[in-house]
């Protein structure tokens, strides 16, 4: 019996329209109807079935999944005549496929857009004095009275611990940096003066054009490839889809 009671909010908003538009841009003059799209690793954490359905509806020629059982799952949703589905473990990968750039995961960002926006919930907001240590090992101390926000995502959700004290976030319109060590289920942000309240959004990455940090900023801060970061996002994070 699935548990439906609500707990901490952890959400990744995925725009399937952005993925389709990126694929169309990358396919160029050859057109989507000849494109094979890489949807391995649950479409790099974006969700195999919703992404595969949107791409099939847009008329792509085929896609590549990780494993044979992913192929069965996807074909069950899109129908076996809709597109060709290659399983990388059975068939290998076609030489000419559209890769992680389809999800906006490669530089330059000028022509493809990131398709995922990752948002944590502010589960605690408090005012503390200067000189307070923050999180395990006290790798950070507040410099003056400030607002600390506790975000309900941690490395068990795939937020890389190596991003501690490095990666950017936005809270109530204001930029901050992950403060102190990222823990298994939570991290802190020293946000200074802020209007945020409990239940508010902590945006880890999203749309750079909206002044949000991007997954590429997180890649730069951590030294990890952006597709590694999004593939590692865990099952407690709800994927919320929009076709816009």
């Amino acid at each position, binding site marked *: *019996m699935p*548990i439906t*009671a*609500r*707990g*901490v*909010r952890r959400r990744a908003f995925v725009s399937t329209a952005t993925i389709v538009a990126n694929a169309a841009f990358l396919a160029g003059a050859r057109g989507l109807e000849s494109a094979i799209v890489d949807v*391995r*690793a*649950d479409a*790099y*954490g974006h969700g195999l079935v919703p992404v595969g359905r949107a791409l099939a509806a847009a008329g792509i020629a085929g896609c590549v999944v*990780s*494993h044979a059982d992913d192929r069965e799952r996807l074909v069950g949703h899109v129908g076996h005549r809709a597109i060709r589905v290659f399983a*990388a*473990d059975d068939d290998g990968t076609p030489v000419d496929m559209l890769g992680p750039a389809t999800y906006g995961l490669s530089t330059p960002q000028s022509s493809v857009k990131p398709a995922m926006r990752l948002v944590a*919930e502010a*589960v*605690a907001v*408090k005012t*503390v004095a200067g000189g*307070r*240590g*923050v*999180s*395990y*090992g*006290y790798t950070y101390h*507040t410099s003056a009275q400030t607002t*600390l926000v*506790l975000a*309900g995502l*941690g*490395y*068990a959700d*795939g937020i890389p*611990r*190596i991003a501690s004290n490095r990666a950017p976030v936005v809270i109530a319109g204001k930029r901050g940096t992950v403060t*102190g060590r990222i*823990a*298994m*289920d*939570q991290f*802190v942000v020293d946000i200074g003066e802020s209007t945020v309240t*409990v*239940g508010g959004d902590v945006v880890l990455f999203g749309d750079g054009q909206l002044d949000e940090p991007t997954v590429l900023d997180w890649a730069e801060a951590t*030294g*990890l*490839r952006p*597709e*590694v970061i999004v*593939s*590692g996002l*865990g*099952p*407690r994070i709800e994927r919320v889809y929009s076709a816009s």
Partner: protein
Amino acid sequence: MTGFDNSPVRAVIDLAALESNVRSLAATAAPAGVMLAVKANAYGHGLVPIAQAGVKAGARSLAVLEIPAGLELRAAGVTAPLFAWLHGADTDFRAGIDADIELGISAPWQLEAITRASASRPARVHLKLDSGLSRNGATPEDWPDLIRAALAAQETGSVHIRAAWSHLADASVEDDEAALALFQSAVTTAERLGARFEVKHLAASSAGIRMPQARFDFVRFGIAAYGISPFDDRSGADLGLRPVMSLHADVVAILTDGRRVARIAAGYADGVHTAGIGRTSVLLNGVRSPVVAVSVDSTLVDIGDRAIQLGDTAVIFGPGDAGEPTAEEWAAWADTVGDEVVTHVAPRVPRIYTSE
């Protein structure tokens, strides 16, 4: 055994090791009891099997982090006391209280939400002090207000004050001792305000092992129970603990690309860390084989001129008995902690449970 045994990548979970660790930690902590932390899908090991094995080995209660995880255990028939302490603005407190999940409480808004939830019984609450970690919990400045709000809610019957608790920063022994003193002083403050605590708890794995005065009524053991040391300078083996999870991946191709490499069936989307390449290695047929590249579904390892067959099994990490890396070794390579190595093993990797 399950039908996943022939998956080319699998996490083998040694429940006998988990039980042995819990028994050993219980002996260390006694007369304090053990609350076993099973948050984050039991640190990636699988919530229900670990909870059941932990209770069997003597854990008196289970730390689940949040109400939905506790409900999952109740649905699986687990009757042990459960403790949840991370709540959001939308958290369904009523479902948690009705399922007799004890609640960690850090701020008055949570008491207000509990009162509004009108559950079938008073919520049993553990009031949390922020003793220096600066995460959840009331700061010493805000603590008296939290106590007064809890006493008022107890007066109306919506809560029953069960415990006072906090969590240590593991920064240094001196810092942890300062936090312990702060905790004891906060308990005194609360008692002067009229609060009575049935139990108190403070220590997790590290203080539970090295700081007897922090054990109080029970220790919340997490990472140590999974056989991984909470310390930088001592291994799990040094502490008499045995790693519970091993990650295995079969050889699915042998390639020659300047050098001979084997492709093994676990990549970064299975949880293999990409940080630390150049240092990282796996054990393949008894020999450490350096990682050359990690891709989405697979990893290439250097096999030199050794005879390797398709289907041979690489041990990415394990207890270390046969010379394979441990999760602790991967943590050092990837500049992290063993906790992240095991929790990062992806849901798509089948967990195979053994108990010999």
